[in-house]
Structure formats: C-alpha cells, structure tokens
C-alpha cells in the first residue's frame, strides 16, 4: 500500500497540506491522487473509529458464521448481496475454511441481534446454518487500540 493510503488509514482528517509535507509532495498533487483513488474505487469512503461501548453501553456486536449453498450460476455473490442489503449488517466477507460467509452485525441489544438472525438471516434461501458469536470486548480495531491506550514504557527524557 502506498504511503498516502497508509497515512489516511491512520488519520483521514489530515489535510492535504499536512499530507503533502509528510510525503514531500504538494497539496495539489495529494488532492489529485486522492481524487484518483476515489475515482478508481480504491478509497471507498471516510469513516471514524468509535468505541461503541463508550458511545452506547447497551450496544451489541455479533460475529456470525454462515454456511450457505452456493448457486450454480452466481456462486456466493447473490447470497452475499442479499445479506449485505440489511442496514444492521456491518461487514460481509467470503471466507475459506469451515464456513462460507462471515457477517458482523451491530444492534441495540442481544435480543435484537438474535431476532435478526432467526427471522432474517437464517430464512434467506440458500443459508444452511448460522452460528452466532457475541463480541464481549474489543481490543484493537483497524489498527487502533480500543480497550486500552498504548503505553509508552520509555521514560520522559533520555540521552
């Protein structure tokens, strides 16, 4: 990944001028490159890393393993599209290994997620089984420490 993308991933709010200084480039060049990445769909959007637990004490996230029967003509894609159409669904990923689709969901409480899985997810045609895992604590997400701050073990001043 190039250094511009890496920097944006750690802080998407850096201004073009700041990025330019760090990369030894100009703000115009940086803006042009970002626009190009957006056009190519390499940059999909800009988001924020939220500690959901702090924002809403009752918020619940679940990770669901879904086994499906792929369709002859379009494989897993159509099923994945059906699942990702729900607003509650945060991520959908096709996996190798003992299940097919990994789905993450967030809801306001356990019941809401349980009901969603029972009524919406498992009833989709082609879904063979689901296995729901609730997230108990998040430690790190997208490179950011969620549970604890990173600690600097070094002293304050050294030669």
């Amino acid at each position, binding site marked *: 990944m190039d250094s511009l993308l890496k*920097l944006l991933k750690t802080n998407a709010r850096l201004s073009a001028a700041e990025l330019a200084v760090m990369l030894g480039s100009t703000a115009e060049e940086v803006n042009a490159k970002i626009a190009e990445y957006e056009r190519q769909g390499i940059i999909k959007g800009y988001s924020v890393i939220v500690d959901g637990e702090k924002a809403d004490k009752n918020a619940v996230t679940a990770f669901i393993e879904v086994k499906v029967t792929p369709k002859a003509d379009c494989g897993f894609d159509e099923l994945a599209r059906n699942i990702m159409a729900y607003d509650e669904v945060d991520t959908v990923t096709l996996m190798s290994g003992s299940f097919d689709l990994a789905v993450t969901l967030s809801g306001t409480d356990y019941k809401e997620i349980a009901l969603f899985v029972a009524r919406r997810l498992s009833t989709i045609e082609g879904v063979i089984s689901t296995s729901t895992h609730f997230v108990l604590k998040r430690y790190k997400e997208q490179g950011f420490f969620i549970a604890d701050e990173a600690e600097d073990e070094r*002293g304050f*001043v*050294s030669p």
Partner: protein
Amino acid sequence: MDYNKLIAKKCIEMKPSGIRKFFDLAAQREGVISLGVGEPDFQTPWNVREAAITALEKGKTKYTANSGLGELRSAISKYIDRKMGVSYDPNHEVVVTVGGSEGIDIAIRALIDPGDEVLIVEPCFVCYSPIVDLCHGVPVPIETRAEDEFRLTAAQLREKITDRTKLLILPFPNNPTGGIMERRDLEEIAEVLRGTDILVLSDEIYSSLTYSGEHVSITQIDGMWERTVLVNGFSKAFSMTGWRLGYIAAPEPLCAQMLKIHQYAIMCAPTMSQFAAIEALENCDGEVEKMRQEYDMRRRWLVKELNDMGLCCFEPKGAFYVFPCIRSTGLSSEEFCEKLLDKHNVAVVPGNAFGDCGEGFIRISYAYSLKHLMTAAERMREFVEECRSGNC
C-alpha cells in the same frame, strides 16, 4: 566518614547529565507528554526477538569470545562493507561492545594520556567529555553553528588543533541537532587531518537514519580509515536499545588495545543479544527501511510545524531529532523547557545539555507517533504564543 575526601577527584568533579535533571522534573508530574527520549518507539523486529529466544532455548547463555561471537563479527564486517564499501578484518579489527557507549569509553581510554587534547564537536551526546576528563585528557569543544546546519567546518577544526591534539570526536548524524556531514564536508575535514597524527573517533550510531541519500562515513575518505575508530551499534538502527549491543571497528593495532580494556572491564557483550544481532544485520533491511520512512514522515511534518509556530529550525537530515532555536521567545533554553513543562506538561530537552553552544535551542525527539507529536505540538504552539504576548 568524609566520602568526598575518599572518592576520586575526577569523579566528584564530573557533572551529572543535564538531561537527567529534566527527567526527574518530568517524572514528578502527572499527564506529561514527552518529546524527550533518545530511543526509537518501534518494537525490535520480531525475527530479531525470535533469534534471541531461540538462543535462550538452545541454552546459548555462556560467555562468548572477548571480542564477540565470530559469526557476529563476520556479519558486522560484511554489513559495513555492504553499506559503506569499507572493509574490516572480522578477526582482528572488530570488537563487539555493550552498546555504542562502551565503544566510546574504551576508545577514549585506550587513546588518551594525561594532557592530551580531545576535540569534541558540539552540541553532542553527553558522554564524551566526562570520559575524556576521567582519563585526565583535556576536552576541547568545537562549537558548530546553526547557520552551518551544525556541520563541522575545516576552518573550525584547524583553529582548535594544537601540538597536544590527539583525537577528534566526530558524532554524525548528530544527536541532538540531526545534522549530518556530507561527503564534501568530510573531504574538507580529511584534508586538514591528512599528514597529522590526529586520530578520529567517529560515532555513527545514527548512520542508518539519514533522509537525504546514503550516510557517508569518514572511513570512506582517503587516508582516514587508518586513523579512525568507527563506533556503531544496534540501538537506533534496529530499535534495540535495551539489548545493549554495539561495536567498534578499527585498524588492528588500535583494536588490540581497546580489546584489552574490554576484556578486563566487560569480558564479553551479552550472548543472547549477540545471537539476535546476527539476525538483525542479515535479515532486517526491510524493517529498517520501514522505520526510516516513518521517521522521515514525522520529521517533515515536525520541521514545518515548528517553523510555522515561529521556532526556526534548519532541516535536520539525520537521527530522529529536531533542534529548533527558541531565542525568539526571549527565554533561555532551560527557562523554556521548565516553563513548557510547568504550564503545558510537555517535556523537551534544553540544548545546552549538549554543550554550551546548544544554548538558545531545544532538542525535540520525533521517536513518537504522529498522533503524539500532534498533541505535543499543539501545546507548544499555545506556549510560544503566550511567550510572544508576554504571558509566560
């Protein structure tokens, strides 16, 4: 007992490091955000840690040869050759030391007789002058200037040379200024030294952290290899400060003498660290480059930020320090640092801790994450504005 009467005079006269004082001040406070450390914030690369673990598992925990593991000395010799095109015989011209610091210590002790003058390029790392003092040598500072980007010039060198000059200590890339010596600068220095009996102690511990082309060592310049003790180590390049491992490379007659001191004082450098160091030299080019790029990004950002807030600094092209001038605030280096700590809880190091000519400057380390640097810079900006409006 009057201990002061019993302790060696040279030791009692030795001043504690000016850096230490700020450490103590900062340590007493809550919520301090520091830009004061001289060690990398990165973890030691995993493969290096793994090599040490393997050495431990295999029970490789005995003494090594005094000069270090043969395999490590070979790796060091190859590494120097690969990076700088200079060759040292691993069997007679390399000694593995406990950090670069030990290398500096044994080099000075092996070379300095009472009354010998040692030219020390300042501002610089804090250990040279006290060690020269302990050897009853005479430290002679050469003060470099911001307008020269803190390079040593031939004229400055020539001016300080006397009949008693034994050694020139050349610390580049430089802590605290971030200054470097380019090839043409070194050529000029070499021109002054050629034909004299003056030796050089070249402390190149930051050699892998340069940001404008490859590092050039004075050993690469004609007629300099034979008069130079090269000091380097693993702390800065491979983020291995706590492993305490460095090395010296020098012509055999010098090495043999330094080895004697090393053998009586140290025996050998830590064995597990030595095994890890082989891995570092042979398989970490990518990791080192990644860290260098990260430092470079922070460096560019920080230099711009400091200049924007009115703390002028030249562009440092090595190490991981910026050395801005703080005279525009009307404060001395120590006042600046004390007040910045007191009012905004940011710890930086006063420039005069690195020699008198560092007065009017502060050392800022960018061995910190960008996020950390940004928070600290914001606080510094507020402080500088307060100073400008007479509120500090």
